[in-house]
């Protein structure tokens, strides 16, 4: 294990849910059995008002991990120090076991696209991403996990597979995997690779957490990572395989659009435990 370990690690078997505003009333009334909640970091950075109050209440009863969408690790510009300051404060505030974000770029030339965008997979970008991820982990003072993308385009100049790129960045940065099983499946269909080969390449002792979510298949066959429905059978099979070769690892259900009532999300979480049993 890396010298950078959290003081309050999650149990490896833990299952959790991405906390979204429609869930608050249910959570505060029922306090469901959830191993941990994951929050979108950007929704709570120096947040005043209702978000901060809700977060404090949830934190009283559950571990909270931070999942960011705006680090812009592979943006052409250097990391945003002010953003990192705020992220560090939030991680300290909730005593997060770990923090995660994506191996991607989100903005450039002063404009934020609020999307998780791919780059070519090349040696020089392995080095750049690893250097920055390592820096972020040092700044945070706690484990930092990188999430693999779901993507819709692939660059001709790539000199390696996505999983080679991903595993090299994690290894060279001494950071961790935030392995999104659904994203592997989505990209495997969109780019025509074997998702099981991807899973086989992962060093599961460095997996902080996995994500599961639903997606949407367009009429042209492209799959879009919409997080708006239950996890599909193919993704459950991939998850079961990952668990078989690399489990246990913390698992989280993400549901970000057409969000159903909390019991339905909890049922997906329970299904994760059944699938791997």
């Amino acid at each position, binding site marked *: 294990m890396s010298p950078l370990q959290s003081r309050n690690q999650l149990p490896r078997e833990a299952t959790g849910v991405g906390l979204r505003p429609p869930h*608050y009333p249910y959570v505060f009334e029922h306090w469901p059995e959830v191993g941990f909640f994951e929050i979108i970091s*950007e929704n709570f*950075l120096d947040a*005043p*008002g*209702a*978000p*901060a*109050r809700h977060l404090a209440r949830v934190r009283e009863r559950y571990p909270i991990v931070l999942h960011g969408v*705006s680090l812009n690790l*592979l*943006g*052409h510009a250097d990391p*945003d120090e002010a*953003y990192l300051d705020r992220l560090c404060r939030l991680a300290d505030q909730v005593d997060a076991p770990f923090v995660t974000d994506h191996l991607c*770029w*989100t*903005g*450039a*030339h*002063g*404009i*934020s*696209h*609020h*999307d998780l*965008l791919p*780059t*070519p997979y*090349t040696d*020089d*970008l392995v*080095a*750049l991403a690893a250097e920055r991820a390592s820096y972020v982990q040092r700044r945070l003072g706690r484990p930092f996990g990188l999430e693999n993308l779901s993507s*819709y*385009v*692939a*660059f*001709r*100049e790539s000199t390696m597979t996505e999983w080679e790129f991903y595993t090299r960045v994690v290894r060279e940065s001494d950071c961790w995997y935030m392995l999104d099983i659904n994203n592997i499946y989505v990209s495997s269909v*969109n*780019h025509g690779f074997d998702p099981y080969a991807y899973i086989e390449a992962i060093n599961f002792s460095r997996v902080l957490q996995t994500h599961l979510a639903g997606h949407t298949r*367009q009429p*042209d066959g*492209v799959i*879009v990572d919409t997080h708006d429905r239950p996890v599909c059978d193919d993704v459950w099979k991939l998850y079961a395989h990952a668990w078989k070769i690399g489990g246990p690892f913390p698992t989280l259900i993400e549901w970000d659009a057409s969000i159903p009532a909390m019991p339905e999300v909890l049922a997906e979480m329970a299904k994760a435990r059944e699938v791997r049993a």
Partner: protein
Amino acid sequence: MTGKQRLAEMQRRFGDAIRAPLDRGTGTLRAPVEAYDTALCASLAGDARERLAVYNRQYWFRLFGVFHQSYRLATALCGAWAMNELVARFLRAHPPTGHDLARAIDGFELWIQDELPETGVALGHTSALPRAALVEAMRIDDAYRLVFEAAAEPSLVLAPGDAARLERARLVPSRSAVMVEETWPLVQLRRGLPSTPAERWVALPPPHDNGTRDWLVCRVGEAHRVVPLAPLHARLLRLLRAHALPEALAILETGLPSSAVAEIAAHAQRWFAEGMQLGLWAALEEVA
């Protein structure tokens, strides 16, 4: 070229494609795949234009969603289609720059005031939403948002000895209560809106017969509450932003007919008690 320079160039071209305005000409919002940068498309495998279109649509629809959510009433009055056009025009001039997606709306109301003619937004061939009504709706939406986002702060609790302080101290308004003034009955309209905006607009109701109405949007627990304000009560609350209570009452009564002065006398204590109950004030501050 260094790795970072190559990234910068790729990201400039990619960003331009993502932000390309969606084509409205066919009556649906279509990604303008033919307009994407040729060199960028050549650098991508497969059917690059259709794949870039996924990001292009996601960029716009994500932002449209943020504006619809932040401006529920304004979106209802415009209908989603017309609102999306305004949002697209605004974002082409002011694309989002920060990590907080919710802040993409910053500057929108000012832009509407500067860029939209007084006649406002054309709705179909025969109808229009005047700019003043749109701005009023946006301010009401803003009030709800400000109250939601307001930091928790203890409400003012008056101790027995504070009665004397009220003579010379200003009541500091709580950030979890915002006054709104309406020319059209929009607050009531907002309360009845569905959570998802429709493509077609909701008709602007006729304006109030006799001037404006005032409302207080406040937070009670974690819920919004809207309270109608009598005209004199609203004027008193505005005066209290700058003056101590006796001074505010004196200004309010100046030039009023005796019937209105009597109304103030009859209601002032109840208004004050209700304000305390609603957590309208955060503190007492000595007036310099």
